[in-house]
């Protein structure tokens, strides 16, 4: 009661645009809500998979994809609320340690989609320390655009399982809605990797 929830200073759209510009063979999975809108705002792409449900699952979709496509970098972009719902998956992922997987949480310390209530992350739970405790090869907070640039390099290099809590401002930019047809997005993504529909 009365406490001020922490959030960062980075602009979420600028962060995501910088991570995805000239992305080469990057595969992207987005958690439902604002992270999906940010990725769509940066430009729709055949190698994006947008979740519209299954809250808490984004990191695990990333693990499955990274395990099946070990030579391509995989980036999960999600929010702190979505990550909190799948916190156990950080333990599961850390045991597997795919070197091509990065989980980047757009962390504003709030449940932005539902009225900007303070989240656990905004009330003192440092997600990057959870990932670190689980054994991620690299885990840290990203608080400026130089850090975003370094993270992008880390993603491209596929140098080890990474987790980033990117400290963004708590605001909701205009929604840019990705396609909601899950079958279409699935088949488009698979086709981009050379897999035919059934």
């Amino acid at each position: 009661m009365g406490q001020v929830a922490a959030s960062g200073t980075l602009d979420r759209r600028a962060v995501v645009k910088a991570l995805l510009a000239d992305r080469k063979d990057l595969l992207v999975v987005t958690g439902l809500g604002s992270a999906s809108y940010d990725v769509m705002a940066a430009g729709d792409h055949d190698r994006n998979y947008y979740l519209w449900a299954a809250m808490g699952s984004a990191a695990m979709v990333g693990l499955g994809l990274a395990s099946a496509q070990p030579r391509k970098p995989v980036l999960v972009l999600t929010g702190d609320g979505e990550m909190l719902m799948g916190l156990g998956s950080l333990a599961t992922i850390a045991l597997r340690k795919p070197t091509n997987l990065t989980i980047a949480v757009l962390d504003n310390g709030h449940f932005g989609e539902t009225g900007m209530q303070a989240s656990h992350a905004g009330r003192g739970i440092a997600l990057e320390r959870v990932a670190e405790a689980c054994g991620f090869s690299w885990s840290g907070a990203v608080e400026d655009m130089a850090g975003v640039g370094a993270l992008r390099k880390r993603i491209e290099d596929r140098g080890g399982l990474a987790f980033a809590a990117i400290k963004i401002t708590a605001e909701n930019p205009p929604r840019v809605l990705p396609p909601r047809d899950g079958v279409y997005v699935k088949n488009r993504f698979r086709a981009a990797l050379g897999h035919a529909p059934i």
Partner: protein
Amino acid sequence: MRASQGSRADAWQHDVYRVLKDAGVKHIVYVPDAGHSVAIRMAESDPGVQSVVLTTEEEDIGYLAGAWLGGERGALLMQSSGVGNCINTLALAACARFPLLMVVTMRGDWAEFNGWQNPMGQATEPALRLMGVMTWRADDPEDVAPLLHGAASMAFNGDAACALLLGQRLIGEKKWVK
């Protein structure tokens, strides 16, 4: 190898793994259960399979969706109590029509000592069906291989969610007091 009278009591457990391999499964994700112990051990020692232990069952739906996006097949091994943990997440399989193959060992189903297992055990099959998962059940060792083959076939040929329930009569009565 077919399970038949006079064969090892856990022959059907070997059938589970053989049928999954024959179906082209490259990923086995699981939350442990004694009824799956043979398949889990075989998966963990199989260099041709990525075996992934989960903290909770709903993790599997995202994992297997991701593996399929990347072009590979997988299957989930879990106990019936874990079906309850999956319910909301099953929307992913339903809305994107990901193939989803689940092998579920039953509790609260027959000769259950721990009544706390009964509510979820009794709700397992209807709950799966409510969420659009097709179900089959095996109580006889001879049914395990053909029913799992059928479920795998319909999952991967039909982009469908399919579950084989392994009944408590098949698994055997759990001895609580030895």
